[in-house]
């Protein structure tokens, strides 16, 4: 037998005032007797302790205390398990969010939850079926309705939590889809109740099995690094979701090197911050870690004790855009990370055709239908390059033929691009077409060192005489051209992603995981980001880093919520094994009523005897 409401045991303390009132109200009836001679002898033997004499078995007091005991037992809601009453179909929703990794319930809440589900599976009747849904960021069904305990157990074994918040809405939708509207299907939710705002979407016969003992956790809720004139500045915020203040030792590291450490006093349900300035600006990445708490019980989730940050981009490429106005081109250039674009408009800035730009010091010069004298070794993107190079005429059969294997043409889908007419360039030998049309080259690229230039990319047509700016190929072409003309000092990688998030990497990248293993990302996507930490990316164009951080304050607040609100107000919360409970409070209450009646009868009988 188990109980649902152990706190009701406190009502047993009512026995104290009952006994006290009994003692206090003890009014002795004065009775004259002919002699106390024989009574005195009796009392001398028995009058050892006056207080105990008062408490000698009195049938009324006994009945009153027994009645109180039965009422208290009814209030604690004891129950017994009756497997015979298990619903025929049950869908179990198992919470696999990050908070389930908390260790307040050893070894982890998730292990305890799996044990509960395992008990449910064991209690299945011969004709009962159970389906199992794992509630993560992307809920999935571990098993459809199955009566096979072995199959269900195997599916359960495969369940693992993740450093992510559970998507309750999607999980409930999945469960209801599996239930197919069957009103006899019961839902069992096994969770700590954290971040369960959408739990109320679950309708029908719902039972909730809470796991989790306390919300004692300290965690890093924010970690950022920024560049200042004095170097790097790191900001760390530590939160405490427990009920008592915690004094934690927080360290800043770069790799294995310890940079600094600080003891932070974090109040209960509060936070503390630390800003560290004057860090070496050359550090590629930083790690903030909670190294120590005085009481291990105050930190029941280890996954949120560390955070990672990448040093922001160290250099900015400067580009000069000479154009009479081309919003598409400006936007495509402006979207490129690490590229600082300076625009000059010939009519406004006094730049005329043939303007001497030989004094311009830029990493990249973009000429939009402008001819100009270029500085030595300038990397140039020429649009409408017919004037800059010799042309033998124009052509209009600009249907796409092929793209060369060039980084400029990579991922540029020219199909569907229409060009009204293009200059038929007679380029120098070092300038080769990378995208060919039927009538001639549409995109040329080459190293113009022999011509006193840097790298050159040339488009022999006016963008306004084509729909290229309206195609997806345009920003890709611009990005490829800019990267080729002026490679970034670093790679355009996201600074931080969440665990499990998929990121795009340059083709041919090799990724070193935090644990040290190396993985390839040939297709330009990388999905093995489950482990928080610093990921090193090695590409043909250089080396870079990105961080995977579990920074989710809501999941890190591991305070369990034992009373979730579901759509059905009568949803039961159970804490024991088995799929069904038989509560006994009504029997106990009835017995208490019987005892009360007996107590009244005994009292009345006593009154009548005295009067007789």
């Amino acid at each position, binding site marked *: 037998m188990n109980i649902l409401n152990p706190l009701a045991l406190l009502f047993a303390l009512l026995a104290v005032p009952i006994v006290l009132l009994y003692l206090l109200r003890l009014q002795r009836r*004065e*009775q004259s*007797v*002919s*002699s*106390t*001679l024989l009574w005195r002898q009796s009392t001398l033997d028995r009058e050892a302790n006056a207080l105990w*004499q008062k408490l*000698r078995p009195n049938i009324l007091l006994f009945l009153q205390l027994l009645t109180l005991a039965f009422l208290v037992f009814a209030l604690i809601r004891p129950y017994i398990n009756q497997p015979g009453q298990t619903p025929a179909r049950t869908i179990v929703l198992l919470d696999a969010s990050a908070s389930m990794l908390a260790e307040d319930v050893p070894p982890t809440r998730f292990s305890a939850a799996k044990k509960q589900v395992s008990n449910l599976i064991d209690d299945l009747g011969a004709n009962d079926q159970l389906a199992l849904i794992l509630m993560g960021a992307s809920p999935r069904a571990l098993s459809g309705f199955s009566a096979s305990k072995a199959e269900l157990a195997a599916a359960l074994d495969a369940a693992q939590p993740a450093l992510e918040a559970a998507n309750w809405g999607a999980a409930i939708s999945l469960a209801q889809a599996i239930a197919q509207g069957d009103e006899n299907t019961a839902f069992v939710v096994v969770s700590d109740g954290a971040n369960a705002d959408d739990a109320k979407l679950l309708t029908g016969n719902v039972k909730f099995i809470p796991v989790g003992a306390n919300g004692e956790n300290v965690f890093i809720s924010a970690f950022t690094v920024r560049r200042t004139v004095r170097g790097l500045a790191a900001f760390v915020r530590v939160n405490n979701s427990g009920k008592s203040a915690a004094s934690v030792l927080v360290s800043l590291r770069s790799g294995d090197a310890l940079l600094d450490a600080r003891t932070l006093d974090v109040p209960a349900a509060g936070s503390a911050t630390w800003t560290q300035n004057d860090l070496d600006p050359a550090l590629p990445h930083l790690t903030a870690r909670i190294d120590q708490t005085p009481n291990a019980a105050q930190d029941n989730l280890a996954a949120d004790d560390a955070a990672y940050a990448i040093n922001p981009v160290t250099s900015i490429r400067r580009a000069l855009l000479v154009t009479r106005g081309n919003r598409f081109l400006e936007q495509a250039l402006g979207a490129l990370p690490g590229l600082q674009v300076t625009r000059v408009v010939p009519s406004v800035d006094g730049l005329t055709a043939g303007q001497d730009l030989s004094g311009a010091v830029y990493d990249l010069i973009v000429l939009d239908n402008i001819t100009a004298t270029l500085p030595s070794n300038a990397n140039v993107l020429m649009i409408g390059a017919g004037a800059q190079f010799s042309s033998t005429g124009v052509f209009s059969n600009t249907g796409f033929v092929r793209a060369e294997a060039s980084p400029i043409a990579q991922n540029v889908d020219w199909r569907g691009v229409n060009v009204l007419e293009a200059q038929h360039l007679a380029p120098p030998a070092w300038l080769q077409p990378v995208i060919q049309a039927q009538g001639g080259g549409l995109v040329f690229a080459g190293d113009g060192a022999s011509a006193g230039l840097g790298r050159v990319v040339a488009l022999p047509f006016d963008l306004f005489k084509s729909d290229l700016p309206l195609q997806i190929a345009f920003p890709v072409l611009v990005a490829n051209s800019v990267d080729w003309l002026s490679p970034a000092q670093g790679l355009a990688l996201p600074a931080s992603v969440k665990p499990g998030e998929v990121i795009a990497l340059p083709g041919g990248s090799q990724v070193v995981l935090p644990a040290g293993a190396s993985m390839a990302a040939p297709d330009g996507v990388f999905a093995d980001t489950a482990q928080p930490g610093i990921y090193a990316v090695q590409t043909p164009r250089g080396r870079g880093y990105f961080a995977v951080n579990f920074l989710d304050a809501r999941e890190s607040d591991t305070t369990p919520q034992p009373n979730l609100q579901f759509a059905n107000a009568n949803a039961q919360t159970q804490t024991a094994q088995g799929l069904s409970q038989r509560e006994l409070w009504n029997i106990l209450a009835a017995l208490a009523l019987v005892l009360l009646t007996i107590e009244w009868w005994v009292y009345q009988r006593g009154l009548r005897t005295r009067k007789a």
Partner: protein
Amino acid sequence: MLSESFLKSLVGLRLASTRRQRGALMGERRSARRGRSIEFADYRNYTPGDDPRRVDWNIYARHEKAYIKLFEDEEDTAVSILLDVSKSMRWMAEDETAPQKMERAAEIALSLAFIALSGGDRLVMELSSGARIGPRRGAGAMAHFASAVSRELARADATSMPINTWLRRYAATSPPGMCFVVSDLLDETGYQDGLNVLATSRAEVSVVQTLCPDELAPRFEGDVRLKDVETGAARDLSMDNATLRDYAQRLKIFTDEAQAFCQRRGGRYFLADTSQSTGDIVARDLRRQGWIV
């Protein structure tokens, strides 16, 4: 206190003595020493069983009625009836409609007194208040004794000696003969010393211990404060079955000890339940005990 009809029912009864019964004078009146003196004392009606030699044939010849001559004994034996009128005897039970202990004890004592008087015995009655009534003899003295006892019982300022003191005092002045003690024997200072002295004063002591139903089988319940009417002492008790069983046990020991004490000293003992009628106690129970013939 005693009705005429009840007294008539006692006529013909005699007080029997155990000491006479041990002798050879079976069928004699209790005070069998009478008749050995030459001093004429009184007449009484002939009852079957009397010695025919003691019949006054002169009266029979004249009146055709048989009378027995009574002569004074040289030792002057008498019947003493000691009635305890202490507060414990006067204690009123809760049920006031039931016969009270004092009233019943007084009726027992007066019944014995009537039997003694109608048997020609010289009677003395003494109450524990110190009041002595008599000595008188003859049935005609009954009214005197009854009224005197009634007056004493009605006294609001009545006091009572402890039993030991009372019995020792009486023993010092009592004539030899039969002595009946009607008491509940419930005295703080005990009763053994007094009875001892009385028994050794050549008096044949018979004790009628009168207890009422509330003393024989109290039915108190719950938490009570018992107050002794004689001493005023109080005792707080919680009545339960165990306490009542304990009291019953102690009462039995008390009464058994009293009986054994009397018998060891050649006396007699009878426990009278005052809820019984006086007729049942005197004419039935005491006759069965052999106290009355």
